[in-house]
């Protein structure tokens, strides 16, 4: 199975990098850990290590070339017979002209369109045109538009061209539909999420503590809010909004939890940039509310609701979706009835709070009277590299206390 080696994105604003050295010749063996190539941005230089064994099948760029980030730099495969697959891939990527048989040197295709299908990247420089609707559709479906021929006016790629392209997806991953199962390639978003959670679990020391908070005041507050529906200036403040608000207050007293771990440096944030998980058709998104500590509960609630809508419609600002944008995340599965779970941290953040459903528990109401009291479960996952259990637990307890003492005017 051939792998496309893509130019990494070394930072938020980096658009492209220059290849300074190619270490392996085409046709040569590659071992895991070998350096494939060196590249630089205007700030720093890097080297790319192979993550697998294989054969360097094809270089798509030369030394000295400027390569847009996430563009494929070379192909590393298992055996030489993958050549055909690779050739098919290279052929498909040429934007115009007749299909070329046999060897085609992509390095001579200097009009390879520099397109990307990441949200929020800069417009096309030279090469094919594409309508806004088609561009979005291509992103969502994970179609590489360099492989699409535009049939619109002036050679513009339009929506109907993608309907054809979808059906002609690359054969890199063999789709073997059979009676027993069907297969579908992962979308870009899925791939990004997969990478992110896997790396989080592999590259940290996460564990989760669970704690219940007396939810009576929380539920009373929510009831009071709902009663005011229809009044002027009504804001639909949800249970999640209230819990987030409690978290923000608790973080004020436990600043070490409001942090990110970068290598051996703990970055402590002066403001709370709170990520709130939103479930959408396309996958999980975690938009960040910046400086959430300076908002009133109404402002927070409105902002959270607006972001939720934007995420679902695909209109959200991609900058606030990055894990680096947040200093803490809250993920709420209470609506689904989950009583306890182990949320995964958005690295480089150091913790994440999972909010569970409300369950009834027997409790001592005083004077030997026992009754059922609603409790809301709080599941805090923290990175033990950055925080100790005691610290994390004290923070969690503080959150519970804030929840237990909620007052709404």
């Amino acid at each position: 199975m051939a792998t496309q080696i893509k130019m990494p994105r070394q930072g938020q604003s980096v658009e492209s990098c220059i290849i300074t050295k190619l270490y392996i010749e085409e046709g040569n063996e590659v071992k895991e850990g070998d350096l494939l190539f060196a590249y630089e941005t205007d700030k720093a230089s890097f080297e790319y290590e192979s993550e697998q064994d294989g054969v360097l099948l094809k270089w798509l760029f030369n030394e000295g070339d400027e390569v847009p980030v996430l563009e494929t730099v070379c192909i590393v495969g298992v055996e030489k017979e993958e050549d055909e697959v690779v050739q098919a891939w290279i052929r498909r990527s040429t934007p115009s002209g007749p299909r070329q048989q046999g060897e085609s040197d992509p390095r001579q295709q200097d009009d390879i369109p520099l397109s990307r299908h990441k949200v929020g990247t800069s417009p096309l420089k030279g090469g094919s045109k594409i309508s806004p609707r088609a561009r979005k559709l291509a992103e969502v479906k994970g179609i590489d538009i360099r492989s699409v021929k535009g049939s619109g006016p002036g050679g513009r790629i339009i929506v109907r061209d993608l309907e054809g392209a979808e059906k002609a997806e690359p054969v890199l991953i063999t789709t073997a539909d059979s009676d027993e199962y069907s297969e579908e390639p992962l979308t870009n978003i899925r791939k990004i999420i997969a990478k992110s959670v896997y790396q989080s679990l592999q590259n940290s020391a996460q564990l989760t503590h669970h704690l219940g908070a007396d939810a009576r005041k929380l539920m009373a507050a929510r009831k009071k809010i709902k009663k005011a529906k229809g009044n002027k200036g009504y804001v639909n403040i949800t249970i999640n909004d209230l819990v987030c608000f409690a978290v923000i207050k608790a973080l004020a007293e436990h600043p070490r939890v409001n942090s990110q771990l970068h290598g051996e440096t703990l970055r402590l944030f002066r403001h709370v940039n709170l990520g709130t998980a939103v479930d959408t058709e396309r996958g999980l998104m975690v938009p960040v509310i910046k400086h959430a500590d300076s908002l009133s509960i109404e402002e927070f609630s409105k902002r959270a609701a607006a972001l939720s809508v934007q995420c679902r419609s695909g209109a959200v600002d991609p900058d606030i979706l990055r894990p680096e944008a947040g200093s803490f995340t809250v993920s709420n599965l209470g609506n689904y009835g989950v009583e306890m779970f182990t949320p995964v941290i958005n690295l480089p953040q150091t913790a994440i709070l999972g909010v569970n459903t409300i369950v009834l528990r027997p409790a001592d109401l005083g004077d030997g009277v026992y009754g059922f009291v609603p409790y809301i479960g709080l599941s805090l996952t923290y990175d033990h590299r950055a925080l100790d259990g005691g610290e994390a637990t004290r923070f969690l307890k503080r959150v519970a206390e804030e929840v237990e003492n909620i007052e709404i005017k």
Partner: protein
Amino acid sequence: MPKSQFIDPDKIRQKGEIVFQPIPVNQYSKSLSEERENFSDEDLVRIYHDMLLIREFETMLNLIKTTGEYRGIAYNHPGPAHLSIGQEAAAVGMAYNLGSDDYIFGSHRSHGEILAKGLSAIHWSDDKSLGKIMKSYFDRAIYDIVAKDHDSSVKELAKKFLVYGTLAEIFARETGFNKGLGGSMHAFFTPFGVYPNNAIVGGSGDISVGAALFKKVNRKKGIVVANIGDASMACGPVWEGIAFATMDQFTELWEGDMKGGLPLIINIMNNHYGMGGQTSGETMGYGMAARIGAGVNRDQMHAERIDGMNPLAVIDAYKRKIKVLEEKRGPVLLDTVTYRYSGHSPSDASSYRSKEEMEAWQKHDCIYNFRRELIDNNITDEDSLRLIDGEVNDLVLDMFKMVIDDDISPRMDLDKDTDLIGEVIFSDGSVNAMEQGEPEVLISLKDNPRVQQIARKERYAFDSDGKPYSKMKQYQLRDGIFEAVIDRFYKDPTLIAFGEENRDWGGAFAVYRGLTEALPYNRLFNSPISEGAIVGAAIGYAMCGGRVIPEIMYCDFLGRSGDEVFNQLPKWQAMSGNIIKMPVVLRVSVGSKYGAQHSQDWTSIVAHIPGLKVVFPATPYDAKGMMNAALQGTDPVVFFESQRIYDIGEQFHKEGVPEGYYEIPLGEPDIKREGSDITILTIGATLYRALEAADILQDKYSIGAEIIDARSLVPFNYEPVLESVKKTGRILLTGDASERGSFMNDMARNITGLAFDHLDAPAVVVGSRNWITPAYELEDYFFPQPDWIIDAIHTRILPLEGHAVKNDFSDKGKIERAKRGI
């Protein structure tokens, strides 16, 4: 036209001559002592007081403009101030016999008239009604300001109210009579019968005719006076207004108590100059303006030249002319001699007249001379007059101080409420009848022959097998308009309609057939061929509180009523702070097959002007529902109708056009056919050509077009269109207006901005060519056709397999044509 008026060739070809009667010039010769039997001493002193107040008011403004201060108080007024210093006697004399039921209309130079009329109205009113007027105006906004610390009579308070309200309006304060939105040139106060002053020269010339029409038709007390200038006698609207006001039909065809002339005095405040152009001797030919009356009708408009420098001469003339109007022998033309010392405007250096001339007139100063006469005739003495001088000065100074105080008299706060002016552009009212009462009709609805004819028609175009009924059997678009109009005639007693060939002929396109039988002349009549006055009179009629349907026979004639449609109709609601409503539904018929000057679609020009609602229904169901909505409203609506489709049946509403009353809210587009591949938005009759194109797209290319009929241009709800574009990703707009500068381009730009990320191609506009409309035989090369739509789609949105393009929609073609201005 009316068969009762037989044109006898024998009489017409007979020999004879036209004889003119002499027109009196300055015939008034009574002395003050002779007049003492007609006036009390108080009356005479009041005349002096009123003239002096105007003089001091205008002098104050003059000092502010020229020196930046008044009596030591500094103030800067950057706005206009066209002053009438010297013309006081003409204003006071004019107003003396007029009460609140009498309406005056003015010009840009009407401060004196506002004050004179207001003072007269105050004099004739009782305390109770004065109190009511002041307290109810803008919810006590002005009353509370002037009543604070007031400790004398109600009439004195009313004077303060008048001076304050006028000055605050001039200085653009929110506490002015029109919230500061009218300013010096458009200030007015209707409770005292002071109707809008018009900054457009001669603008009141036809509007006042409509007001007089309102008084007559609705049997109201009072007369109407139009105070216009000598130079305005060159203006179209004034001549058209005169033509309209002197129509023979008032005396020869109108019946019963409606028989007789309009209660209107056209009062030329003849100060001998336009801005600087000298009318007599340079820019006009009449010598004395009163001459004009002789050329208009047999009564010579009862024209007289009167001495406007003597208030008693003016009062005498008005007394006599009001009697003429009461005897229904109007209208009257007065040529009032006067003079202004102040320049046309503050920037006027008076280079057009000599110092000697001004000094000569100052010797004839009306106030100085009248004052002397009062003393010489022992009506009053110097001391009493000095007292009055002092009171007037104090009144002006006190009100001045209050008006320039930003705390007492703030301006509109557009920082706090950025949409404040937007709130008054439309009144958005919903009123069944502008006044209560029994509508005057000649027969019952069910006896109406047209109503009976329509009852036999099919209200849905297709039978149960889907076959269309014959045109004669189909309920047509014109029937929809008719049903809405006649329904309102039977509901709203104030509703009238007029235009060219409206009565008898039934309207050039048979929309009004059947109305002649139902309505007396005073509710439906033929106007002269005066598009300006047709719209102008409608404006005046509506200003007084009546609902009216003026008609412009061909859209191409809109140019003839340009000022009325662009400068007057859209603005009075806002300029009055929404005190005045404008329930005018201007029907405009868009032609075709009639060549270059009878086939143009000018919807875009009208839609550009803020203050107008603009609609263009294309089906019988829409036409009836929207005409009902327009006639229920209180805003000016320009209601476009396409002559191509007056006879079209109802193809969409399967239940048929409802017989009862229903409204379609203005501003809502309508999806006429659903589809998912491309959205086509149409304005007007192109709906049907778009449907043809949609059939071709479906049959030949399997493309489903969603056809949206705009129905309205202003207001317009984009949301349904955006929903459609989100679905299809493609949009094409089409209408019969020439593409350049069209409203379609406005919509296309808005849609692109609002739905950019959903677009698979830029929005495309298919309008008419930027040419003259050719003859019928060549029309299909000018107006959008179904194959143009297909070609445009192919070239600019979605190339169609196997399609061969005939019309050039390419980039190159567009650029070349734009370079050539075509």
